[in-house]
């Protein structure tokens, strides 16, 4: 609209050495690949790798996307988004990531059989032989899945 005169003046030049930023990003990438090779506690590595990712995101957003030079609106837009983006997985975690109620699905039984999780439900671990298909049982036995 005519009185939206404010649009001008955004072409002014900010002196950023984009090449340096690019190098920094490459180094970050290399670091995360190195993390993959060294043997550290995996939780620690996960944190480190994600920290590197955040650092990379910082570089891209601040310099490539020019957020460093934008007004305060960037906070108004990005803070709520960031909060929601972190909040959603957090809110999903208690139900999907952890399980309050006992889960009984074929995958859990396999996992118990292989010792990945303790066999808490006391379910039999060996697949039952033969045809057990008339067990009206959700995770009842693996054998019937082949029918």
């Amino acid at each position, binding site marked *: 609209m005519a009185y939206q005169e404010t649009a001008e003046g955004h072409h002014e030049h900010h002196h950023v050495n984009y090449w340096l930023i690019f190098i920094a990003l490459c180094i970050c990438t290399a670091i995360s690949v190195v993390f993959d090779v060294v043997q550290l506690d995996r939780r620690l590595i996960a944190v480190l790798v994600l920290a590197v990712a955040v650092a990379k995101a910082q570089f891209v957003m601040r310099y490539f996307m020019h957020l460093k030079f934008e007004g305060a609106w960037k906070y108004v837009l990005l803070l709520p988004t960031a909060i929601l983006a972190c909040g959603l997985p957090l809110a999903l975690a208690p139900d999907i990531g952890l*399980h309050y*109620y*006992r*889960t*009984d*699905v074929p995958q859990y039984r396999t996992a118990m059989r292989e010792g990945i999780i303790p066999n808490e*439900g*006391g*379910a*039999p671990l060996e697949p039952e032989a033969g045809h057990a298909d*008339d*067990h*009206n*049982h*959700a*995770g*009842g036995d693996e054998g019937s899945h082949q029918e």
Partner: protein
Amino acid sequence: MKRFWCTFFVFWPIMAVILCWVAPAQNWWFPRGASGTGAAMSPLGERIDDLFYMILIITAVTFVGTQIGLGYVLFTGARRSDAPHGAEDAEKTWFTHGSHNLEVMWSVVPAAVLLFIALYQMEVWAEFRVKDSFPDEVRTGPIAEVTARQFEWRIRYPGLDANGNPLELMPDPQPTDLYTVNELHVTSAEPVMIWLRSEDVQHSFFLPELRVKQDAVPGLVIPVWFEATKSTDYSWLCAELCGWGHYKMKGRFVAEPEEDLREWMQELQNEQMDDGVPDDVGDSQVAD
């Protein structure tokens, strides 16, 4: 006409209040089923009802209050609207942009009320759902496993030992297990727990008279406990849309004294163990 509309807006809340007032007498209230009065048939249900009535009183007061306020501003506003703009002081429009004190007041008071409701109810909720708050009686284990499927309930009980006492219910089917379809018998002597699971889609285990409801989620085994205070038949239905037959997914829920329950289970056991193929009977009883 203005008076008519004012009356109209006052009339309907009055009707609403009257309707709610007469509803219990007209049997438009909690299901009378087993109790005859509509009272909840379980201790926990009674507490839920108490909570319901408490909220009913709070909301009724709010409702009546706001509707009176609305009626008042309508009547006075109607009178004033006859007066021209800039009339005598008494008839003048109240030129105001609001009041800070009022805003604070009507934020703080509802906040307090709401916070009170929120905190007050937590205990009931915890008792019903949080495993650590379950009553001691049900911690010993479930008395049956109820599996929902389109469109029926399948129940697996542990079998009886030589003395006629129920065995422990194992997570997986045992040869000794007893099966029924759409018929759940429990004791009315103490709280009992079931394992609830679903074999296909989501269902919901609903005992209206006991005020019990819990969804059966595929993949999860959810413990549900309840206590029926009277030995009788109760309604039992499915409350989560599970397909075209959702509405007809009902079962017979019987609470009975311990002895009757034993007797019934013994009968069930005899019936199921009696046809000569010991290891297979449980299954064939409930085959498709």
